[in-house]
């Protein structure tokens, strides 16, 4: 897992640099105490120091055990996670224009059919069932203010 730890430390060092640079845009002190730039500045410094320590630590010669082995998934699994996120992003993108219930139908159908290998008709059935449940529970019973969209539901 050392490679992973190294990557995370580098990301944190970048983040700390960004925090420090951004915090300089705000005043460091106010009349009696810290200004808006005080906390972000010191958080940046602390994060940078810890990340540097962690980064250096990844080069120390500790004995490798099972936990040191990379646990990041292969491209196949990452692709699967990416697809789920893509379908969810599609949900967020179209929910206002299509309406919540209709978007749920497409979301579930596409997820089950394209990603989970469920048959088309079965996926359609589950899409309808999920939409109906969402409509009944959250729109009809709880009267939540969810986007209405094309069909007005």
């Amino acid at each position, binding site marked *: *897992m050392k490679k*992973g*730890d190294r990557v*995370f*430390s580098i990301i*944190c060092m970048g*983040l700390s640099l960004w*925090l420090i640079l951004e915090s300089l845009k*705000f005043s460091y002190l*106010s*009349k*009696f*105490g*810290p*200004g*808006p730039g005080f*906390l*972000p500045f010191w*958080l*940046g410094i*602390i*994060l940078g120091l*810890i*990340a540097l*320590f*962690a980064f250096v630590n990844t080069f120390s*010669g*500790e*004995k490798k055990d099972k936990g040191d082995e990379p*646990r*990041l*998934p292969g491209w196949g*699994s990452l692709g*699967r*996670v990416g697809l*789920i*996120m893509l379908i*969810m*992003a599609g*949900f*967020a993108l179209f*929910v*206002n224009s299509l309406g919540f219930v209709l978007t*749920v139908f497409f*979301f*579930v159908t596409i*997820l*089950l059919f394209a990603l*989970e290998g*469920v048959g088309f008709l079965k996926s359609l059935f*589950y899409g309808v069932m*999920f939409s109906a449940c*969402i409509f009944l529970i*959250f729109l009809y019973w*709880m*009267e*939540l*203010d*969810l*986007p209405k969209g094309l069909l007005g539901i």
Partner: protein
Amino acid sequence: MDALHSLMQGFSTVITPFNMGMAVLGCFFGTLVGILPGLGPSATIAMLLPLTFGMNATSAMIMLCAIYYGAMYGGSTTSILVNVPGESASVVTTFDGYQMARQGRGGVALGISAIGSFIAGILGTFALIFVCVPLSAFTLKFGPAEYFSLIVMGMLCIVFVGGKSISKSLMSGVIGMALGTVGIDVVQGAPRFVYDISQLMDGVSFIVVVMGLFGIGEVLVSAEERMKIKTINVKLKELWPTLGDIWQVKWSVLRGTAIGFFIGALPGAGATIASFLAYGIEKGVSKHPERFGKGAIEGVAGPESANNAASSGAFVPLLALGIPGSGATAVMLGALMLYGLKPGPMLFHTNPDFVWAVIASMFIGNIILIFMNLPMIPFFAMGLRIPYRYLYPAILLICIIGAYSLSSNVYDVWVMLIFGVFGYFMKKYDIPGGPMVVALVLGPMLEYNLYRALALSRGDMTTFFTRPISGTLLAIAAIMIVVVTFKAVRMKRALIEEKEE
């Protein structure tokens, strides 16, 4: 006597058809979601928060507490029947619970877990009253300097016990604090890190962060692994432990309760550490430690009692100090704020009806859970047989509805998705999310109290050290840093020596 009188008034508030209904629904939904592997109480409460929208604060909090307890109960079911913990506090239950299930005593394990949790929940709530009332009276003396030092100490506790690696916990905590600086700053009212995005003016909603990190992130990990769950069937008549079983674990339950409540009340320690500690102690005091890991009933009773008592203990810092000690109580704190309440010791004075109703509801919630869960365990376990490919779209949809409903805006859904990706990678890299969430809540509090303390002392930094309570809290924080550093150096040396040998 005052506390008893107030508690009775609390019961009179809770025992209305609507509030009782909310408690029952909370227990039901909490158990139902909590039973799903990986989804712990923090994610469960955040996901189900929209169910409370439109209610008054008391009914909403009654329901959220019931969800919390329900999720804790639910977590143990998967540990025993599937050998996959429902949440981290139930990990230790898999050691003996699953072995009992394999030996055909799964029902007894579930029954003992429910009974132990019930006793721990009731005793823990009594302890909560006895600790919380005097502590809240004491913390009324706290000024901004004391709160600042308390938050520093609490943050360090959370970081030091938050995960396997202290440096990762620290980085997670600092990133959480940095996220807390987004929005209008408390000092000059200047927008920070907003970049002309109007929604960022209010900061990053930590409820959305919790749903992303713990809800979406967890689902992505499980969906990626194409989780297949094989449950061990349990029949209703097998659920009742014999009197001999109960008698055998009486001390385990009581020890677990005491350990759980004490550990749960410490910021950051929480139910997971409590359950592991209880297991260790049970094994240590047992005359037959060799039975542990092979289906020892005490190995289920102790940890399960401890993690439920820790849930009661976790309310101590929340109610008496207004600071969350865990991810789940951080979400509770967020919910309190959503309902316009200011958590902290003043809550006992400004909203006593609310506080006592919530405490009374904890007793009722535990009673509902034991009556509901024992006969319904086979039903809840049936949920585990639904293939995960049909379950996870439902979880994702509930998260989306939860995020959207917070401000009726798709922006929160986007934020949740971003944190979902972070949550996935954090899980993969073993970076604990708890410190980030709690720091996100505590960060603005820390900055506000730092500013106020320095304004009151006209910029004199020594105010944090010269005020007795503040100085003591900072001294404890300093001791913690020294002890942890010393231990880390010693471990490192041992590793190097081991390598050289």
